[in-house]
């Protein structure tokens, strides 16, 4: 138990500088980008000189770099995410709207890619070098090579237009769906195509990690010993080969989930899912500093939390970890 507490304490403390650096990075990125939020807005509407000046005043965009930096640091210190310029609403409310969609997509993608990747990896790693192994590994490479926006469009054309099994876009139906059960089914129905488009590439990663681990495990002494003892093949495979090979799979999962919480601009755009990726993109094109800082910080925080969970899971699965150092 002390290992876990130590891990939590160290991670919690080290998160603070990470978040600070990330927030300042986002602030500086937009500070040094040419044009400000008013320029971005006027690009859509036009307006005379007085109009631009009034807009800058009302948005608090006047002032010098030092003044804006001071304002930014104050809001950071008070944990105030502030007001989004692009949406004319509090940043927290915008993120609260978008984050669940991204988390849903992240969870479904991880389950889909993890499940399929590990399953296929197991099939391929059962007899390395067999026909099944070659077939699966080649197919996985193909999946890895397909760009996800293209796969997304392909899926839409095939499974939403030509053969209309799934909705073209969106995260839920616009009309009522009849009760919470219906809403859940509706959500799942909408998530199928984006999950496949986003997850296809990850399948290969999981598969290859597991397969490599299994190939290695087959050579290990404990497996040979088990085989020599005449244990059943299935039990050798499950306990001697798959189990140790799963650990690196978990590491890969932690990294992938980290990438996924940032959202995917491409898949969110193709499937019109209002998520964090598109939000970050809108924040940058709108020069919306408060919003970008909010998006980046919440994504970072999630990554840190997920990494922590993965580490705890690893520590639980593998007693060698954390016993001598945190």
């Amino acid at each position: 138990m002390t290992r876990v507490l130590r891990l939590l304490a160290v991670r919690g403390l080290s998160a603070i500088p990470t978040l600070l650096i990330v927030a300042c990075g986002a602030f500086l990125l937009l500070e040094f980008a040419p044009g400000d939020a008013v320029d971005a807005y006027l690009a859509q509407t036009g307006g005379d000189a007085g109009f631009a000046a009034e807009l800058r005043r009302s948005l608090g965009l006047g002032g010098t770099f030092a003044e804006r930096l001071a304002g930014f640091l104050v809001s950071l210190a008070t944990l105030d995410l502030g007001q989004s310029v692009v949406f004319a609403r509090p940043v927290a409310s915008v993120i609260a709207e978008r984050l669940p969609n991204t988390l849903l997509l992240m969870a479904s993608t991880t389950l889909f890619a993890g499940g399929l990747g590990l399953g296929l990896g197991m099939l391929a790693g059962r007899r390395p070098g067999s026909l099944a192994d070659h077939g699966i590994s080649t197919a996985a490479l193909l999946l890895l090579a397909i760009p996800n926006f293209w796969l997304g469009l392909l899926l839409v054309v095939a499974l939403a237009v030509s053969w209309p099994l799934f909705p073209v876009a969106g995260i839920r139906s616009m009309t009522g769906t009849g009760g919470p059960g219906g809403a859940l089914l509706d959500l799942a129905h909408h998530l199928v195509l984006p999950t496949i488009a986003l997850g296809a590439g990850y399948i290969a990663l999981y598969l290859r990690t597991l397969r490599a681990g299994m190939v290695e495990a087959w050579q290990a002494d404990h497996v040979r010993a088990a085989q020599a003892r005449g244990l059943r093949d299935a039990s050798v495979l499950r306990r001697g080969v798959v189990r140790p090979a799963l650990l690196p799979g978990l590491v890969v999962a932690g990294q992938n989930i980290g990438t996924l919480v940032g959202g995917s601009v491409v898949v969110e755009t193709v499937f019109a899912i209002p998520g964090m990726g598109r939000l970050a993109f809108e924040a940058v094109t709108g020069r919306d500093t408060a919003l970008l800082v909010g998006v980046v910080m919440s994504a970072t925080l999630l990554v840190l939390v997920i990494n922590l969970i993965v580490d705890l899971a690893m520590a639980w699965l593998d007693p060698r970890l954390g016993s001598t150092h945190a």
Partner: protein
Amino acid sequence: MALHRRDILAGATAMTAVALTGKAHGQTTPRSGGILTVAADTEPRNLNPAMVASNGVFYVASKVIEPLAEMVEGGDGLAPRLATRWEGSPDGRTVTFTLREGVSWHDGRPFTSADVAFSAMRLWKPLQNLGRIVFKNLEAVDTPDARTAVFRFSVPTPFQLVRNALPGLASVVPKHLYEVGEIATNPANTRLVGTGPFRFAEHRPGEFYRLEKNPSYWEAGRPYLDQIIYRVLPDRGAIAAALEANQIQLAAFSAVPLADMERLAKVPGIAVIPQGYDGITYQLTVEINHRRKELADARVRRAIAHAIDRKFVVDTIFLGYAKPSNGPVPAFDKQFHITDVPDTGFDRRRAEALLDEAGLPRAANGMRFSVRLLPAPWFEQTRQFGDYLRQALRAVGIDAQIVNNDPAAHLKAVYTDHAFDLAIGSPVYRNDPAISTTILYESGLPAGVPFSNQYGYASPAMDGLIRRAASAVDPAERTTLYRDMQKLAGTDLPLIHVAEFTFLTVARRSVMNVANNPRWATSHWADTWLSA
């Protein structure tokens, strides 16, 4: 290839005619009911058209909040909406509006002249992006009775201009909701309350807007549709797919890529409709920084104009869905447009001769001088034309380096910092040269005014024409002045007009009465209906 594409265009037009009359389905009597789902690609943070006169706002808001008058084809070009009559005094000091009887706001309160006076004085004039220019001399709006609003101007203001501004700049919002608190942050800016055929029902950010039928609309029996849903679809490929799958029935403003148009036009049940945008014509222009000494020479600017093959631009970049342009007023506006301007046809030899004459011979590397070229990121076509222009200029010995920016950076570089030599722009012509066109030519504007003369062009003759036209109350005199202005623009070439383009609507054939006025996508849709 070009001929082939025109055939498709002609075919599309013929199909539209069928769609408009409804004969394709053997139905000619409008049917009430149904939900029309359309594509939307932006969600403006302020949806109030009395404050933000832009197409992105109008696309949704014009169904909820109505202007005093709307554009129509033919006649005098205007149809009554909230106003039934408008009359200007001969001295240009007053305009009297008679307002429609029996109109109420969506919250049940009656619509009166006080709403018009409030909208004009508190929103259009001080806050609206375009109204600040057109209504800047509006002194007061008198309301002798609930049905009459009298606009009083401090200096003579052409009635012609006020008329032409009504569809776009004169959206009326309810005084009783706006008179308390800050107008800029009023909740009604996003949850619209108007008098229009549809009521604002719901906005789920990132997903959709939903409008529903106003059962007590002033025009009996309208609207036909029960609901209009705007689905936010940021990807243009997804819009095409959603149309094919009939999950949306209409996409306006060329939301579907031009390259997909040919394919979609062949899908049974889908029509490509080029009409309905004449009132919002965009112009493809080359913006020129006159601070560069080479470009300050009119011969060099003329040489650049001669280096451009307008026909190629129209056929290749716009796939035929555009027209070559000869100046600041598009051909659609027959009131002001002229054809006799100095020739700027495609002629490379002439271009080279002019450049030689200007003392800019080709150097050892074959180039005469080099420029920074900033294509505006607004449209696919403005970027593509940037690539074309680079090649076209290279052929006459001008080395153009393309600088790509996102919208905010482009706006700042061109209109505030003047950090460009050539830029590709796409100004909108809004039914009268005084609304957003003369500003591209008049001098003395401060830096930072977007879509204005930030080019360093200053001509006393041009400024004089614009000033005189601004207060010319006699329509004939005003028209002549703007014709002279176009001639001078053609001689001086402070900026080069290359093409004029409108948009395309792609719609299921079940949608009826599409594109039946010159700013259809940004109008009321009260008469739009769905065939069974």
